[in-house]
């Protein structure tokens, strides 16, 4: 493609690019930033090696690219300029068309070193299958061990089992695996065949990539997903930086995008996705580690037995006076004379074969299979299935299910994990005046704050909860009125110059100055809400316009993103009113997180909006130099068509009256006429022609994009520099005729899609108050104010959110003052510190700050998430200076992130606080119950959140992390010394308390009391806490803020912190950064020696999830990153209870039993053989009939039926299995022996267990006995047995309880009464 391959992607399907491509133009404005989130790793399959699936995905999805690249030689295949001395690690990508198509690979600069884009899906060919597959299988240790044994068996002197017989097991294993591999490969082949039936010959050839001649210099392939630096080198020597924002990674799904144009930088195995894919996650569980030790012991035992046997065989042979006369010794004087020592040595190897079973290699295979089964049943659990989202638990790590039963610490994120992450705007304080949601809202449902009652959020039925959405804002009537009455001066230019204004009459107390200040603040507050975000506005959910084989359905598509397509559409009317029918609604309101991957959904323009390509093409050809001319031409063209559109659009709208009725609060309908549209456009055009920035022209063209992509796919400068009037690559199905299109109308109910729910809630809230974000383009934002007034803000910069700054900003050029204004929103700590001195000293400012802070704590105490909104007006001079430095930072190849961060810090100063907001994030249903159950089961739940302390504490109470009777220790200090002293104090306090408890001589073993339902038995979580709890003192909860946490984690202080933390039942860390979360997890793992489970939903939880023993991702509102990093992905937090307390216990219990059984079984087998050596002269002979008998019963029914058919005289079977079986079956002695063996095998265990249970019954048993005693008192004693027996069968409840052990650790047991679950 050299210049551009049009990659078509489908929404929500698996269509993904197979290559990683750079979007042609760098994103100068940084408008749709946060593209660290761009990457969606190829979803890892749940049950199998992902490679084939990735391959298959790549193969089915990337065909458009692949075929373009390979068939048409359009691709710039990767190429490294190895001679480049300055950047040895960089590579150059040069358009392919600069080279002769016949250039051999080794001479082609793009292909010398790096992979091309050819995709081979199958692993094997017919010829290579056997050797390659066997080779792969021999990589497994178990297989090698088996092979070694088999090979030993082929040494005649050592041979212990039959040569062929010993080959059966390994042959079977290899065969089964080979067949499985062959089948998988065959399926891939089938798909490949289907794919190559697809026809690509009908490609439109208007696309002329040869016009692109620039070279790209970029990093050599590496696996760092979040890093990409490169330069675009034009032929005239100018450079442009390309960053990760311009990079589309393989596996990305594109959203709201019909197609993209880009340059292939990495292909095939060089892609970052492939370089990062190192196969399925492999975690080692504790049980596995223990098992490995056991196996080491088994090896030791085996060696001891082998040596013993060998030594004794030597001794035994030495005892013969005349061995050559002994009939049963096979030694003959001369060639095969007896050498006892040599015999001993040979016997040693023979013993290795005979006793090989001691090392339970097959245990690994068995455990793998068992775990697969467990994981399968886990995913099948109805109680962990979330119906509204149709999500079941996703088990991504297959080998640690039993680890779930060993968890001691649960580290949970708050937002989105404990809460719904459905942000609802609740309150705001503008200029120090609080506006709450009015109770008379159209919603009609008075809500209480979650923190107050702790129940309101959880008590609601699910359906009701779902109906409330982020857009469900109860507008404050007063505020609405104020907005509607904003003074006109605001919109007429220099507002601050003291022009008199009319009071709105509602507030008589306000002085004119105050009122004006308030009005200004209200204006800026809502503009900030609507502007300062990365929300994407859509008229309707995006639809995929590609069919299965990669063709555009219909005959047109949105070309706004094309660098090569210079469309002449009116820039302000691309969004259309469409009917959102049920089918179109498949595209969900994707809300992507801050760091979330952008999930593309290619959008279909409504059918009645299609533009005729043919009609546009002539226009495009005109646009060579003068883009303005072209635009005006297109405007003319469109206006001529627009009449039709409006009527149709309104007709469509009328079909949906119900929808409007159901809207739970009133939004002023947009009443725009064609006339006002045109006027508006005209006005904007004027504005633009006045601002004569060079980029502006191309910006205008790019604004044609109907739905600006979040991927910043605008290709601004290239239109001028790199291309001369290119047309897009279009691919249509033959036979499709063009239809006349109609001009679009503005959206009546725009759909917002945002990266974070907070943003979305703010935008919807602003919308509810009449300040509507109408359109967002790369370089401009259109906002409609109350009364239909529209303002178009030129978007200058977006300074994206990062967790260090904890705020984001946009810099826009105000249409009124024509000055640059910075709007900033962020955490209070992040914004309050950056307020300007002038504002702080100003009386109005002081008042605003003071009141805002009051309201902030009030909101937080309600459990609301708070944000501060601020603004700063920049002088032209200031702005120019800053812009220059910022541009330099953006151009910088190295250290760019850092420089941009610093640049953002520079401009985010001297802010003026406008207002604060309170956003409610409802607790998920079942969270308090779940946390309580976990706590009762002895798990310690820690919540690590980025929220402020008051909010977090409130949520902690609501979620029963803290109970009312609990004593809270709050750690907060400003420096290390203070922290240390404070910790000392608490350590002393806690240990004194513990000491006194000990002194009282009461052990913390308290008889459990069954609660009413009998389901949960509460016992204290651990010894000290138990002592506290039962001794009348409350249990202890700990609250730490991020700053103090940083000090607490210092090596000097850590010890004390650990001592405190180990005595707390619940811990709450506020204002914690992702890295701190991870270090807390590490602390619990290493210092508290506990198994840690981390659960979270966002990208900021990834490091914590990866750090923990078990990582759980919540597949919720935020992106896929937490899920991708996790071992288990749940839909809701409450499923954790079942996952840990039921499945975790089952998995651990069953696996532990299995492993023990395995060792027991093997030991029985091996020791039986070993003792037999006493009777056969230590000759390493196996027990006769042993194998035969075992085999007989396995194979009896098969062999017995077919024996006569295929057993010929040449068959080397010493004892035909069916004969042995037949004789055994009719022999009473066999059965008698069988029965007594069973009894003897079980008897000791039963007897010991019974004695133990009687002498020292477990708490569970004690409880049972007690219960039975109760029933027994009501009836005669002799009926006990029958009764208890019956009771056992009828009881179904599960009992969760805790047995505190001596060390203070806990053992969690879930005991199922009558229902044994497999």
């Amino acid at each position, binding site marked *: 493609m050299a210049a551009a391959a049009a990659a078509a992607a489908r929404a929500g399907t698996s269509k993904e690019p197979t290559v990683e491509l750079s979007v042609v133009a760098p994103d100068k404005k940084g408008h749709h930033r946060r593209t660290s989130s761009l990457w969606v790793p190829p979803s890892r399959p749940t049950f199998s090696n992902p490679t084939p699936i990735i391959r298959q995905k790549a193969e089915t999805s990337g065909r458009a690219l692949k075929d373009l690249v390979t068939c048409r030689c359009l691709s710039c295949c990767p190429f490294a300029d190895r001679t480049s001395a300055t950047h040895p690690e960089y590579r150059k990508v040069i358009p392919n068309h600069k080279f002769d198509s016949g250039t051999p690979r080794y001479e082609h600069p793009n292909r010398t070193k790096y992979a091309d884009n050819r995709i081979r899906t199958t692993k094997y060919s017919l010829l290579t299958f056997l050797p390659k597959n066997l080779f792969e299988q021999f990589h497994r240790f178990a297989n090698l061990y088996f092979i070694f044994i088999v090979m030993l068996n082929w040494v005649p002197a050592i041979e212990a089992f039959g040569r062929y017989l010993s080959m059966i097991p390994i042959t079977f294993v290899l065969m089964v695996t080979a067949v499985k591999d062959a089948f998988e490969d065959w399926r891939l082949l089938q798909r490949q065949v289907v794919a190559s039936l697809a026809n690509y010959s009908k490609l439109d050839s208007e696309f002329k990539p040869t016009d692109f001649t620039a070279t790209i210099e970029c990093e050599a392939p590496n696996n760092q997903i979040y890093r990409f630096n490169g330069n675009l080198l034009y032929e005239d020597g100018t450079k442009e930086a390309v960053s990760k924002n311009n990079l589309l990674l393989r596996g990305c799904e594109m959203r709201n995008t019909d197609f993209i144009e880009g340059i292939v930088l990495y292909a095939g195995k060089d892609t970052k996705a492939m370089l990062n894919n190192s196969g399925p996650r492999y975690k080692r569980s504790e049980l596995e580690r223990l098992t490995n030790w056991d196996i080491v012991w088994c090896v030791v035992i085996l060696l001891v037995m082998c040596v013993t046997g060998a030594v004794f065989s030597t001794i035994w042979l030495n005892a013969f006076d005349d061995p050559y006369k002994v009939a049963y010794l096979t030694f003959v004087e001369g060639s095969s004379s007896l050498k006892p020592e040599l015999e001993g040595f040979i016997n040693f190897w023979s013993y290795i074969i005979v006793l090989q079973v001691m090392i339970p290699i097959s245990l690994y295979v068995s455990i793998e299979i068992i775990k697969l089964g467990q994981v399968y049943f886990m995913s099948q659990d109805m109680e962990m299935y979330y119906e509204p989202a149709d999500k079941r638990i996703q088990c991504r790590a297959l080998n640690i299910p039993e680890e779930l039963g060993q968890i001691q610490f649960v580290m949970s994120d708050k937002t989105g994990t404990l809460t719904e992450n459905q942000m609802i705007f609740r309150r705001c304080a503008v200029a120090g005046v609080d506006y709450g949601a009015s109770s008379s809202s159209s919603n009609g449902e008075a809500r209480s704050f979650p923190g107050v009652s702790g129940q309101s959020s959880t008590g609601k039925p699910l359906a009701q909860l779902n109906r409330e959405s982020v*857009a469900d804002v109860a507008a404050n009537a007063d505020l609405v009125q104020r907005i509607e009455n904003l003074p006109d001066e605001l919109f007429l230019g220099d507002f601050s110059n003291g022009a008199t204004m009319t009071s709105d009459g509602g507030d008589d107390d306000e002085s004119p100055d105050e009122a004006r200040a308030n009005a200004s603040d209200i204006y800026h507050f809502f503009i900030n809400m609507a502007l300062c975000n990365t929300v994407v506005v859509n008229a309707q959910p995006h639809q995929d316009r590609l069919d299965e084989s990669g063709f555009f359905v219909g005959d047109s598509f949105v070309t706004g993103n094309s660098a090569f397509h210079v469309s002449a559409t009116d820039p302000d009317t691309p969004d259309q009113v469409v009917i959102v029918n049920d089918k179109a609604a498949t595209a969900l309101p994707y809300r992507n997180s801050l760091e979330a991957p952008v999930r593309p959904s290619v959008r279909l323009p409504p059918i009645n909006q299609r533009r005729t390509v043919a009609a546009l093409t002539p226009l495009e050809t005109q646009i060579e130099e003068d883009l303005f001319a072209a635009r005006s031409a297109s405007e003319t063209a469109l206006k001529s068509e627009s009449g039709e559109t409006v009527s149709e659009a309104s007709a469509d709208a009328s079909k949906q009256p119900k929808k409007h009725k159901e809207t739970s609060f009133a939004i002023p309908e947009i009443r725009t006429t064609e006339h006002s549209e045109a006027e508006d456009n005209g006005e904007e055009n004027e504005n633009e022609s006045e601002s004569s920035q060079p980029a502006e022209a191309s910006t205008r063209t790019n604004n044609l994009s109907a739905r600006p992509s979040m991927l910043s796919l605008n290709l601004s400068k290239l239109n001028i520099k790199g291309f001369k009037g290119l047309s897009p690559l279009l691919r249509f199905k033959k036979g499709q005729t063009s239809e006349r299109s109609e001009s679009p109308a503005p959206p009546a109910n725009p759909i917002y899609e945002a990266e974070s729910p907070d943003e979305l809630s703010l935008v919807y809230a602003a919308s509810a108050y009449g300040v509507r974000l109408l359109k967002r383009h790369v370089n401009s934002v259109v906002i409609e104010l109350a009364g239909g007034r529209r303002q178009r803000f030129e978007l200058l910069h977006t300074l994206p959110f990062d967790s260090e700054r904890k705020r984001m900003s946009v810099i826009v050029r105000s249409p009124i003052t024509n000055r640059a204004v910075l709007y900033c929103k962020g955490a209070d700590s992040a914004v309050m510190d950056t307020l300007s001195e002038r504002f702080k000293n100003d009386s109005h400012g002081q008042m605003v700050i003071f009141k805002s802070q009051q309201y902030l704590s009030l909101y937080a105490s309600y459990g609301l998430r708070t944000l501060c909104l601020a603004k700063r007006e920049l002088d032209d001079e200031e702005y120019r200076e800053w812009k220059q430095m910022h541009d330099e930072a953006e151009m910088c190849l190295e250290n760019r992130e850092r420089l941009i961060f610093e640049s953002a810090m520079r401009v985010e100063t001297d802010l003026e606080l406008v207002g604060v907001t309170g956003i409610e994030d409802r607790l998920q249903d079942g969270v308090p119950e779940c946390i309580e159950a976990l706590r009762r089961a002895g798990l310690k739940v820690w919540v690590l959140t980025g929220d402020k302390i008051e909010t977090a504490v409130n949520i902690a109470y609501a979620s029963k992390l803290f109970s009312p009777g609990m004593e809270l220790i709050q750690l907060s200090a400003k420096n290390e010394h203070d922290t240390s002293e404070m910790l000392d104090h608490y350590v002393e306090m806690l240990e004194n308390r513990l000491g006194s408890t000990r002194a009282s001589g009461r052990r913390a073993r308290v008889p459990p009391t069954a609660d009413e339902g009998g389901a949960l038995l509460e016992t204290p979580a651990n010894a000290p806490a138990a002592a506290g709890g039962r001794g009348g003192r409350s249990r202890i909860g700990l609250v730490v803020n991020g700053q103090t946490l940083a000090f607490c984690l210092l090596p000097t202080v850590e010890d004390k912190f650990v001592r405190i933390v180990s005595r707390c039942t619940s811990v709450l860390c506020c204002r914690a950064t992702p890295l701190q979360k991870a270090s807390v997890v590490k602390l619990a793992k290493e210092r508290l020696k506990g198994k840690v489970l981390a659960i979270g939903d966002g990208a900021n939880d990834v490091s914590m999830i990866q750090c923990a023993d078990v990582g759980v991702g919540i597949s919720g509102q935020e992106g896929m990153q937490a899920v991708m990093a996790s071992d288990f992905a749940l839909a809701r937090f409450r499923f954790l209870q079942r996952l840990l307390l039921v499945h975790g216990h089952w998995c651990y219990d069953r696996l532990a039993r299995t492993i023990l059984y395995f060792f027991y079984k093997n030991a029985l087998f091996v020791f039986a053989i070993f003792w037999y050596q006493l009777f056969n002269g230590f000759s390493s*002979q196996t027990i006769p009939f042993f194998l035969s008998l075992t085999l007989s019963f396995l194979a009896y029914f098969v062999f017995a039926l077919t024996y006569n058919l295929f057993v010929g005289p040449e068959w080397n079977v010493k004892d035909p299995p069916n004969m042995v079986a037949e004789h055994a079956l009719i022999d009473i002695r066999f059965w008698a022996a069988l029965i007594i063996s069973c009894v003897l095998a079980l008897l000791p265990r039963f007897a010991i267990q019974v004695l133990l249970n009687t002498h020292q019954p477990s708490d569970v048993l004690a409880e049972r006995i007690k219960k039975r005693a109760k029933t027994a008192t009501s009836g005669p004693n002799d009926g006990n047995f029958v009764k208890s027996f019956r009771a056992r069968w009828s009881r179904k409840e599960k009992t969760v309880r805790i047995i505190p052990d001596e060390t203070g650790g806990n053992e969690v047991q879930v005991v199922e009464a009558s229902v044994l679950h497999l």
Partner: protein
Amino acid sequence: MPDDLPKIPRSRGKKNKPSESALHQQKLRAYKPILSITCTLPLFFILGAIFTPAGLLLFKAAQSAQEYNITFTNCNATGIDGPVRGAEDDLQKGIFNQSLKCIIAFNLSEDFNGDVNFYYGLENFYQNHRRYVKSRNDIQLAGNLESTADCDPYSTTNASGVDLPYAPCGAVANSMYNDTFKLFKTKFADNGLLTELMDVPFTTDGVVWSIETKRKFLNPRSPPGQNKTLCELFSNTVKPPNWQTDVCKLTDGSSFGFESVDFIVWMNVAALPTFRKLYRRLNRTSANFTNGLPKGTYRLEVDYNYPVKAFNGQKRFIITTQQWTGPKNYFLSIAYMTVGVFLLSFSFLLLIIYLKQLREEKNK
């Protein structure tokens, strides 16, 4: 504007919904006992109550099986009429010729009713030694004389410059037990003179499993058209070094060579160093022995050929009757009785503990 937010359409269905079957939800009914007294006491008691009588029953059966055991390693111990010398010593010195017989007279004090089996027994003979067990070739035994793999050190021998296979090859065959037995019912007159010497009829029927004669042990077949004798068929082979007769002349009376029952019995190696092997069974079709062996005096004549001195072995001849539990063997019965008694006493112990607990509870 909640209603404008697209919802998950119904048409997509709940494709991820798990199956609600009891299996998938792990709710299959099962019983997982907790081993408490109340649950195990009845179990132990019932088992004990079953095992103890079962053991007694087995014991009774074993007791009712009859067995007569003659050790004849050194013939002179029981000699009445035969050579009164240390037969084994002479055999080791090689001074016996083939016709040496050991004649033992004995008295059965009661009738051996029903099927009567005759065993020979060897003590301290490690037929289970790994190298010994391996030293055979089953393909040769099925008639393919050339096949001598695995027969080391008795696979082939160099006779006049040509390597000829041993038939049968291997250490197992080479060490074949070759004593032969004859049993007579004797009657003596009052003066002690032998008045009657009646042959006790032996049969090989039922000595080996039919599969062995049909499939595993087969003489080489004469090629079609040629009617070769067995010895001609074996002509290109050499008898094992320890053998006194050629393999084609080896016979149990009815079948020859590899198919001879004596050979087959020997080739089925014993699991323990002290073993007995079924030699013949009583032919109860004969008029005097339809009910088994009547009590009275008998004479056993042994062709004494097999040396056991080198490994401190013992040789025995055993006459047994068969019960439903097999021949006389007390092992199972003792095992059953032991376990049964243990179970019973353990359940009584548990009962005491349980009663004690109950009393304690009442006192509370």
